[in-house]
């Protein structure tokens, strides 16, 4: 994946979820086609932690089936960093296990100006992918 497009309505929903959850980290799955996100699936952070997140496997299985039925592909896994910058932590990199998806980190460190960055992780190599917020 070399770039990712996210409709402003989806981005705003992700920010609203993160703000509502703060100081707990929020998380979810972004689905779409090619490089364009079409749908957001909010997930439960079963850790209920301000510094960690774990998705509920039952929710994961349910969402994957919904995506498949809708003809969508999992493009990115997102979570919020309520107090730290939009970068992958060592833990994020270690647990970036799902192949062929990007990892989006949404930082609320600047509460008025949420910042999202997208990364791909290939073994020990991490690279940032441009994120474009588009109409829709």
């Amino acid at each position: 994946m070399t770039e990712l497009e996210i409709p402003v309505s989806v981005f705003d929903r992700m920010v609203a979820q993160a703000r509502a959850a703060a100081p707990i980290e929020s998380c979810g799955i972004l689905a779409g086609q090619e490089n364009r996100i079409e749908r957001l699936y909010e997930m439960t952070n079963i850790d209920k932690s301000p510094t960690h997140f774990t998705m509920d496997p039952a929710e994961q299985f349910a969402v994957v089936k919904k995506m498949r039925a809708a003809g969508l592909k999992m493009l990115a896994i997102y979570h919020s960093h309520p107090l730290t910058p939009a970068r992958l932590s060592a833990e994020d990199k270690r647990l970036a296990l799902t192949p062929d998806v990007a990892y989006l980190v949404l930082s609320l460190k600047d509460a008025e100006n949420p910042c999202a960055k997208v990364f791909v992780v290939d073994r020990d190599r991490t690279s940032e992918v441009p994120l474009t917020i588009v109409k829709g």
Partner: protein
Amino acid sequence: MKLVINGEEVKSKGGLSVSELLVEQEVKMPEMVSVEINGRILRRPEFDTTVLNEGDKVEFLYFMGGGSGAE
């Protein structure tokens, strides 16, 4: 034997346990995978004792987690 793995029909050797299927399908880091068979999520100890049957619907998913940690 035919199985449906992550929505796709796949040929597999018959009589495999879930642990053996993960090896057969070359799933990396199987200790980080959750498995659902015919809509039921397996507990990890069941990976060795659950044997796949013809037509079973199998879903594999990696653990999804992380976090800002101790930054």
